[in-house]
């Protein structure tokens, strides 16, 4: 088990800066998830921690020791790849025990560890098979088994579940969570999948363009996103945004039609964008006081939840999410969107979230 510290880690491929001065501290035993859009450098960061790519600048510490120049094979880590990367010419048992064999571990010890890992992952009946003879889920279990058996001080996962179908994903997600609870080893997990991030992580690291946007617990990131990027990234469907502007004479914040809000923000904390999550909105009668007005577009019934789309202007459609059916409206019908101050997010010119508390003022209902 080990903590991980990154100090101003940068990585460039030629003139292209993939990672830019990453500072991060991961506690011993933590489950950390890296999320971010495709190409933001998640894999590169993980591989830099593993030692599979050299960093251009900065230092990597594992377990308090500086390992920046230590080769991957000496870092005491295990890596689980998206493609599983099983050895195609070895059977499952050998795939799992290969590294132990090369480390000249005693046969009995190898067998014992193999059995334990196989039991833990329920792959005991597959030990004689080649990777080709396994299903995707089974392959992933073997890959995890191969990582587990060397008893590393740090687990790295690069999108381990993204080649699996939805059911299997859920099952394996559960298994990985269980695994972490059982062995308590530090894990770093890269994913595209918000659900994986929200459910697995002790803390989430959100990356964008090679920079860390925010680090925090899933709840913190969801409730108090540091900026517009984080706010828009977490949540499905994503947060609704709309431009706002401050009327300098009245000091009132004007947004989409029907939205008026008193602000005390000034200068750089002047909000220019507002955000409301789909589940914070409620479809009400058109013209209801303090509601944002729009026209109903369409509704989707997903069984366990309902999604509706309401057009606010020619180029702005908002999403509403509810556990109640939302289909009682005709296409093109004028509706109102009710919202509450506690759910409102405001962002300034730089995209930084402005505290609504600070900007709070009496809401003035203005009929449009």
């Amino acid at each position, binding site marked *: 088990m080990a903590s991980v510290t990154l100090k101003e880690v940068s990585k460039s491929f030629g003139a292209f800066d993939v990672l830019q001065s990453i500072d991060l501290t991961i506690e011993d035993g933590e489950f950390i998830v890296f999320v971010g859009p495709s190409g933001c450098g998640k894999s590169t960061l993980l591989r830099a921690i*593993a*030692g*599979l790519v050299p960093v251009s600048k900065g230092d990597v510490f594992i377990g308090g020791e500086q390992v920046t120049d230590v*080769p*991957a*094979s*000496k*870092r005491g*880590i*295990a*890596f689980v*790849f998206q*493609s599983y*990367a*099983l*050895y*195609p*010419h070895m059977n499952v048992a050998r795939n799992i025990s*290969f*590294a132990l064999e*090369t*480390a000249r571990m005693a046969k009995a010890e190898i067998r014992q560890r193999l059995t334990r890992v196989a039991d833990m992952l329920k792959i005991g009946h597959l030990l004689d098979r080649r990777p*080709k003879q396994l299903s995707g889920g089974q392959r992933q279990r073997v890959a995890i088994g*191969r*990582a587990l058996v*060397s008893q590393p001080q740090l687990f790295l996962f690069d999108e381990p579940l993204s080649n699996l179908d939805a059911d299997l994903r859920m099952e394996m997600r559960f298994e990985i969570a269980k695994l972490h609870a059982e062995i308590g080893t530090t894990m770093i997990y890269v994913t595209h999948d918000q659900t994986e991030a929200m459910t697995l992580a002790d803390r989430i690291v959100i990356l964008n363009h090679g920079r860390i946007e925010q680090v925090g617990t899933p709840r913190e990131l969801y409730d108090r996103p540091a900026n517009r990027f984080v706010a828009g990234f977490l949540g499905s469907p994503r947060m609704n945004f709309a431009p706002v502007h401050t009327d300098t004479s009245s000091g009132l914040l004007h947004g989409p039609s029907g939205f008026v809000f008193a602000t005390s923000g000034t200068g750089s904390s002047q909000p220019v964008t507002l955000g409301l999550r789909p589940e914070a909105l409620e479809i009400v009668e058109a013209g209801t006081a303090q509601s944002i007005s729009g026209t109903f577009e369409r509704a989707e019934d997903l069984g366990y939840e309902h999604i509706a789309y309401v057009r606010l202007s020619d180029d702005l459609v908002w999403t509403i999410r509810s556990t109640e059916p939302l289909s009682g409206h005709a296409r093109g019908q004028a509706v109102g969107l009710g919202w509450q101050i506690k759910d409102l997010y405001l962002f300034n010119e730089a995209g930084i979230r402005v505290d609504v508390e600070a900007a709070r003022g009496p809401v003035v209902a203005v009929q449009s």
Partner: protein
Amino acid sequence: MRNRETRTAWLFLLPLLVALAAVAVWPLVRNVYFSFTNAFLDNPSEYSFVGLQNFITVMEDPVFWGAVTNTMIFTLISVSFETVLGFGIALLLHRAFAGRGLVRAAILVPWAMPMVVSAKIWEWMLNDQFGLINKALIWLGFLDKGIAWTADSSLILGTVIFIDIWVTTPFMVLLILAGLQLIPEEIYEAAEVSGVPAWKRLWSITLPLAAPAIGVAVLFRTLDALRMFDLSYVIAANNEKAMTMSIYARDQLIGFQDLGVGSAASTWVFLIVGLIAILIVSLLRLDRSTA
């Protein structure tokens, strides 16, 4: 449905089969046919059957066995060296480095040249009086006077092997490199991360996974080497120390105009090459899918 597909497949194969029959099967059948006769090349329409006499003549000729031995030695040594060198160079080229594309193209040059041209170039370079190699060796102090690499009977087979290695190693490199590039990078990374040292990765991952490609390359090269003609013919002419099976057959057929014995010798060559091919294929299990 199945039947129709099969029929269509045969239909598509038909032109190929006809062409093969015309240029391969028919000459082969004629060759075997003539090997049972006493025909001569100047008048091949007049002959009578002599049974296995020609085969016995060839088998009892020590020159033929000399040619067989030469061919075997040549094949074994040159293919071994070419495989090892080819694998080594392919490993180097597999690593990304600046100018790799250029090196990859340049390395093909020896192979792209016609064998006769390469042989002539080397013959000149190895010349005992004017040759570059001897000059260089003398200048470096390894030799007092030039060695007649291509005239000295004890050196000539070695010289032929050396030139063949120079010419055909690039071919091996390319075939093996193609095989190496099929191995996913992540497999190595997985091994590296779990602490498997580099030599072990080479031995237990690269080698077994590249084995099918190496096997095919070895098969190609072996069959090619077993019927080698041009290189020895240019360098050694009729020197028995470097005579190959193909040269022996050619000498009987063209040199002595003996169509019967020449055909019998060709048939022997065909049988020997065929036998070795079957042996390699079954040894490498190339016919089975590597599932």
